[in-house]
Each structure stands twice: as C-alpha cells, then as structure tokens.
C-alpha cells in the first residue's frame, strides 16, 4: 500500500507545457482514475509516476519518499499498456515471470508464481501458449498478471479497456474492481470515458489541458463540479451565467433565483455559474406560477422508453430535462413552460 504524492510537477516538451503545476496527494489502497479528454496530459502524468519520463520540475513521492530521479526499473510500479505490450518472443508464463527472471529467481518459483497469477486472472490453462494465440481480452488479463507479478507498490493502467468491445469492457471493469479490492493495491486507471471513471473508482482526478481540475469521489465530482470544465465533461449539464450573492440568491437574466449560498460567495456580486443536471429539473405549466423558475419553450421531446428526454430553450440556453415515462407528459413541442430550479443546484465560481 502506497500513497502517491505529486508536488508542483511540471512537464514541458520544448515550449509546450503538458503538465502545469500538478499537486496531488492520493490515498493508498484505493482505486483512482485519471479522467480527461484526449491530449489533456493523462498519459504524460502517468509516465512521470512510472518513471518512464523525467519531470521538468517538481517532486514525485511514494509514501513520502522522493522518487523523482529514481529510474523506472527501480520504482517497482506495475503497468498495463493500452495495447498490452506483451513480449512477442516469450510465451504467456515467461511474460508473466519476466521480472522475476531478471531477479534470477529459480525457474520452479517463477513458474509457480505465474500459475498463481493465472489463477487469479481466471485463465489457469494457458501458461504455455504463445502470445499470438490469445484473444484481446486474454492478452489484457495476461498483461495485468505480468504487472502484478512483482507485487508492485502502485498498479497503473493506461486506458486498459479501450480496445475491448462494450460487453467485455463492462465485465472487465467489474473484474478489475474485484481484483483491486482483493489485493488492496493502490491502483490508477487512465480513462477518457467518464462512465468508466464513475463506476470504477474511489477517487477521480479530472485533468484538462495539463491542469488538475478536481479531485474527489465520483459523486462529489458529479454533484459538485469545481470548474465549468468538470461540470461539462462529467455528465451533461446546463450552466447559467449570473451573479451569486452571499444571501443565497443568484441573479440571472434580471431574475433572482434562490439557491444555497456557496462559501465563496461571501461578498456581493461574485460572478458564478449555476450547474443544472437533467434529473434535477422539472417542467410545469406557466399558469402554475411555480416559484424559483424560469420561462422556457419546449423544443424537442424524445421518448427513450425508460424515460423521456425533453429539450427546452430560454434565449441562448438549452436545457435537458429527464421526465419519467410512467404518465403522460401533458405538454408538447412548442409549448411555453416554466422550468423549476431546485435550491440544491450547485454554484460554480466563474
């Protein structure tokens, strides 16, 4: 069990800043995901943690110990690569026990350890197969076994599931979680799939353009996004631009909405964004005079069977509302409605 700490870590490629002043303190024994769009610097951060690249500035610590200048082969970090990177000239068990062989452990011990790991990944009978004879999913598991063979301090997986089909992916997500819980090893998974991040992890680190946007549990990330980027990237939302006041009102479009005052809105007139999630919203007829609501026009209705998605418009803003499909909606496209804004809506500092 290892805690991972990054302190003021910078990474530059020439003049390009791939990572900007990263500060992270990740708990041990947890399932952690790095979530961010393509090119945001996830892999870069990963490689710094594994020691495959040098930091330009800053410190990387494992359990508080400075490993910044320790080369990759001395860090004991288990890695799973996107295309698995299983050595084609070695067979399955030789791949798994590659690290042990470097340590000149006896063959019997290496073989035993490989079999043990093959049991763990539920592929007990393939020890002597060549890599070319494995399916994608099997290669994936073998590469997991190989990374775990040395009992690494950290277990890192770079987009491990992106090459698998949807069904297998869900299955592997569950298995990875099980595996992590069984071993209790600090595990970091890189992904750009927000669903994957939400379902798998204890802690999500959202990254964009080389900067950490937010660190938190999946629920926190979803309910209380720290930045407009997080609100937009994780789940769908509508962000209303306005002014937050310390008395718990949000000025939007000349209207005053009642919300829970965030702690940063201590002074008057702080610009803020109100984050509205589809499942928080409800439409009511204009005649109902719903308080804490804004006028909208219904622009689209999509019946998905399990629920109904309604799109509504107010000026340049577009809202997504999820209604249950149990009873009739009672309104149609083009109808003028009121959109109720719950007081629990989250305010983001602009």
């Amino acid at each position, binding site marked *: 069990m290892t805690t991972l700490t990054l302190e003021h870590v910078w990474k530059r490629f020439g003049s390009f800043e791939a990572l900007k002043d990263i500060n992270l303190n990740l708990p041990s024994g947890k399932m952690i995901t790095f979530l961010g769009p393509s090119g945001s610097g996830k892999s870069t951060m990963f490689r710094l943690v594994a020691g495959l690249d040098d930091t330009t500035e800053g410190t990387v610590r494992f359990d508080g110990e400075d490993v910044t200048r320790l080369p990759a*082969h001395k860090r004991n970090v288990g890695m799973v690569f996107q295309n698995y990177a299983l050595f084609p000239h070695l067979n399955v068990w030789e791949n798994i026990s590659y690290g042990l062989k470097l340590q000149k452990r006896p063959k019997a011990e290496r073989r035993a350890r490989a079999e043990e790991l093959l049991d763990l990944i539920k592929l007990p009978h393939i020890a002597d197969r060549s890599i070319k004879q494995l399916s994608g999913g099997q290669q994936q598991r073998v590469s997991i076994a190989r990374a775990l063979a040395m009992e690494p301090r950290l277990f890192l997986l770079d987009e491990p599931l992106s090459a698998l089909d949807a069904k297998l992916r869900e299955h592997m997500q569950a298995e990875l979680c099980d595996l992590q819980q069984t071993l209790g090893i600090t595990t970091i998974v890189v992904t750009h799939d927000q669903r994957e991040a939400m379902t798998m992890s204890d802690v999500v680190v959202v990254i964009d353009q080389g900067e950490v946007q937010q660190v938190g549990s999946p629920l926190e990330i979803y309910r209380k996004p720290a930045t407009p980027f997080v609100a937009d990237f994780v789940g769908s939302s509508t962000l209303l631009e306005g002014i937050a006041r310390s008395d718990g009102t949000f000025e939007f479009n000349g209207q005053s909405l009642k919300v829970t005052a965030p702690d940063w809105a201590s002074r008057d007139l702080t610009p803020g964004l109100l984050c509205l999630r589809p499942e928080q919203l409800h439409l009511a007829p204009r005649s109902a005079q719903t308080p804490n609501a804004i006028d909208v026009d219904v622009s689209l209705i999509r019946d998905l069977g399990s629920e109904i998605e309604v799109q509504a418009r107010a000026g340049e803003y577009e809202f997504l509302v999820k209604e249950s499909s149990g009873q009739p909606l009672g309104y149609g496209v083009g109808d003028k409605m009121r959109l109720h804004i719950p007081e629990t809506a989250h305010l983001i500092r602009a």
Partner: protein
Amino acid sequence: MNNHLGKLYVFGIALFLMLPLIVVAGVSFNEKKRLYFPPRGFTLDWYKNVLNSSEWLGPIGTSLTVAAIATIVAVCIALPISFMMWRHGVLFAKALFGLGLVPFMLPPVTSALGFLIFWSEIGGYGSFWATTISHSVFLVTIPLMMISLGLETIDDAYLDAASSLGASEGEIFRTVILPLILPFIFGASAFCFVLSMNEYIIAFMVAGFTVETLPIKVVNSLRYGYSPAMAAVSVFAVLAAAGLFLTVARFGDLLKMVGALDKSD
C-alpha cells in the same frame, strides 16, 4: 482469366530468371571436358574434381574466411550505429548511418578504385586484411538497413513495459531488443556473407591475384578455357546461397526482412 494471365507472367519471368542456372547445372554433368547442353553423358566427376583439388578448395577456403570475417565486422559496425540512432537519436549515429548507405548508392567500381588507391597508399595492397576490411565496410549497408528495419518493428511500449518490470537499459537490450532483432541480424549476415562470397571487383582491385577468392579464381580459369568444373563451382555457389536464404526464411520472416509490412500488424 486475368488471374491465370498474371500467374503465367510471374512464372514466365521466374523461368527466365532460372534459365542461366538451369543451363549451368546442366553443363556441369557433361562427361567430356566440353560444355554441351543438354549434357552429353552424365557424370558427377566434375563435382568430385572440385571438392578434391586444392586448386579449387584453396580459393573456396579463402572466400569463406573473408566472407565470415567481413560479415562479423559489418554486423559489429552496423549494430551500434542502428541501435544508437533508433534508441537515442544520436546525431553522430545518424551521420554514420548516412555514410554507411553510400556504397549502396554508387557503382561498386568507384568504391573498388577508392580501396585500391587507399590500400596502396597505406601499404596494405594485396593483403588478406585489405580484402576483408574493404568487404566489410562495403557491405555494411545491408546490416544497417536490415537491423534498422528490425528495430523499427519494436514497439516502444515493449521497452517501457520491460523497464517498469525492473529491467535496466542493458537488460532491456539483452532480453527484449536483441531477441526481437535476432532474425534480422541473422538475415543480414546471410545476405552479407553470400555477397562477400560472390564479390569480384573489390577483391580483384585491392589484391590482384594474391588473395585468390572464388570469383577471382573463376575469372582466371575462364581465361584458360571453359570446363564443366567451373559450372560445378557455380552450382555450389548457387546452392550455398539458396541454402542460406532458405534457413533464414525458416527462422525468421524473410518477407518482413526485405521490407514487406506484416499483414497482422
């Protein structure tokens, strides 16, 4: 229909390519010391003749030695250059790589004349080492290109994987890179070896007749008239080349070595 036309074309050309070899093999079986085709009579005496006379065994031995040493030297020159260029992008390695490709771009006569002048200036003209070293630097293009081709097929992720599993630079080279490029090294060596065995102009220019390699010996004998023994020697040369290339194809992907893309990639 078009398919058959295509096959006919390919096998027609293949036949044209084999024609001289077939005729040479044929005349080597002539009973009398004349070159008839189809052969008159049948005998293997010319082969025995070649294998028993020091007249032929000497040059064969010389050629084998020159080729073996030249091949080893060429691979030893090429391996560090290709490796440093590929792994570390060293500028000096790139320059040397470029220099090593030059023999490939020039008619061999020009290199041969360069070697002739060089070795006579420094006093090695006519020595065994003049022939061998000239061959090794002349042929270095082959291992340079083939080893680089082999290195290109190695995914960087293998190296990262190895180092995350605890392998140092040296161990990565020994346990990952070397096994993966070994077929290419082997292929390049075979290619180099056969080329050196068959090389005439440089061997002739830097040693005249003092280091008598097999091709020099054949040319000398041709001056005194043709004999089926020469055909037998030629058959040996062809068989040796074919045997080596077959072995390479058995242990590695020959098509990949000559630059084809692996279909499974």
